[in-house]
């Protein structure tokens, strides 16, 4: 049995498929007319093609039954979900990628530490510290003031007491001194006045006594003279 020409087989297949232009097809026809092996090869391929078509006819037989099964199966399938009709295939993937990247950028920006604003940070820290420490400081200061006040008062109290006592003592001493001095002077003056009064009274008394004595003397002299006179007359008389 003659075999086909190996270098002609591709062309023969393409000729059978109708892939050759007119000139190439004519060349193949000319060769087939001259080469029994290639002619048999071509006939084999044609028969093989017919068998394939026949096989396909049987394969597609009963297609109506298959379609019926599919349509029956579709009865239990829910209708299509809504998608964006204009976005599909590559565009959908691209949009999804952009969305994912965009979300990543946004999340990154939101979560990334911001540049340090010294003034803002200082103000925030100050406000925060003031807010957090102010009550404590106030309490601490008040407590300190209370303690200092109490200590001051305690010490002042002692000092004041001592000072007051000293002052009182000084005042008392001064007062006593002055009082003593004044009293002595007053006493001296009073004594002097008293002495003067006493002297005056004594003088007055002396004068009164003197006058009384004078009067007494006078009266006594007169009486005595009277008596004497009376006595003297009686005696003369008696002598007589």
């Amino acid at each position: 049995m003659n075999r086909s020409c190996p270098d002609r087989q591709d062309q023969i297949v393409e000729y059978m498929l109708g892939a050759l232009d007119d000139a190439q097809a004519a060349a193949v026809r000319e060769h087939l007319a001259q080469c029994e092996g290639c002619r048999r090869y071509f006939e084999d391929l044609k028969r093989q093609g017919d068998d394939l078509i026949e096989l396909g006819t049987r394969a597609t037989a009963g297609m109506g039954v298959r379609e019926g099964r599919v349509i029956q199966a579709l009865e239990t399938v829910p209708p299509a979900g809504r998608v964006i009709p204009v976005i599909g295939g590559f565009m959908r993937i691209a949009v999804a990628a952009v969305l994912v990247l965009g979300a990543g950028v946004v999340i990154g920006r939101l979560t990334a530490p911001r540049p340090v604003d010294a003034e803002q940070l200082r103000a925030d820290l100050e406000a925060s510290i003031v807010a957090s420490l102010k009550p404590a400081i106030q309490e601490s200061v008040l407590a300190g003031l209370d303690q200092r006040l109490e200590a001051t008062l305690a010490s002042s109290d002692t000092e004041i007491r001592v000072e007051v006592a000293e002052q009182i003592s000084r005042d008392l001493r001064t007062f006593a001194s002055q009082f003593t001095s004044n009293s002595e002077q007053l006493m001296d003056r009073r004594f002097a006045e008293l002495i003067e009064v006493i002297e005056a009274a004594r003088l007055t008394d002396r004068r009164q006594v003197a006058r009384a004595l004078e009067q007494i003397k006078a009266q006594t002299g007169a009486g005595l003279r009277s008596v004497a006179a009376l006595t003297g007359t009686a005696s003369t008389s008696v002598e007589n």
Partner: protein
Amino acid sequence: MDERSDRDLVTASCGGDRTAYAGLVRRHYGHVFLVCLGVLGNVHDAEDVAQDAMIKGFEQIRQVREGDQFGGWIVAVARNLSINQLRKRKTTEKTMSTWWAGPGGSRVEGVSGMGFQPMNHRQDADATTDRGRDALDTGASEDLQRAVARLPWDLRLPLVMYYFDGQDVKTVARRLEISPSGVYLKLRTAIKELHEMLTAQGDTP
């Protein structure tokens, strides 16, 4: 079949109109199923994942910016779900591939005609169900099924879309979001590998 445009049906479905979405299911389920089949190479897994894709489409239909783009959008959903499913069963699939490709052809009874791959546990359980009968019961094309199943999924998917779904290369390229030349390259590679596998098995179509 609902005569309204995809745009109108999508708009109505966004409002929860199940009847409108049923119209979209009838219009696009075939493409979705074949994309799943192209990736997974297994009819039963393709049915399950295609159903999951249509349900997910109803749940997320508001993501469709232009109603006219629903077809491409739901196919992309189905393809992604299928690839995820393929990864999940990777270990099991390797085990199964070794199982039925091993020495002596140690196939499990029921493998023939049950899809593009040897039966897994689910297939075994469904072997007598309607779904089992819906699966490929080819007989003569069993080798072709197995050859298709052995292709890498990135080669099998454009092959299935081109031959099974009758889509032209430009449509396959648009739905797979690759260039037409890329689709031609994958188709060429897949077709040549299939031929080599079938020839090696001595069962040239």
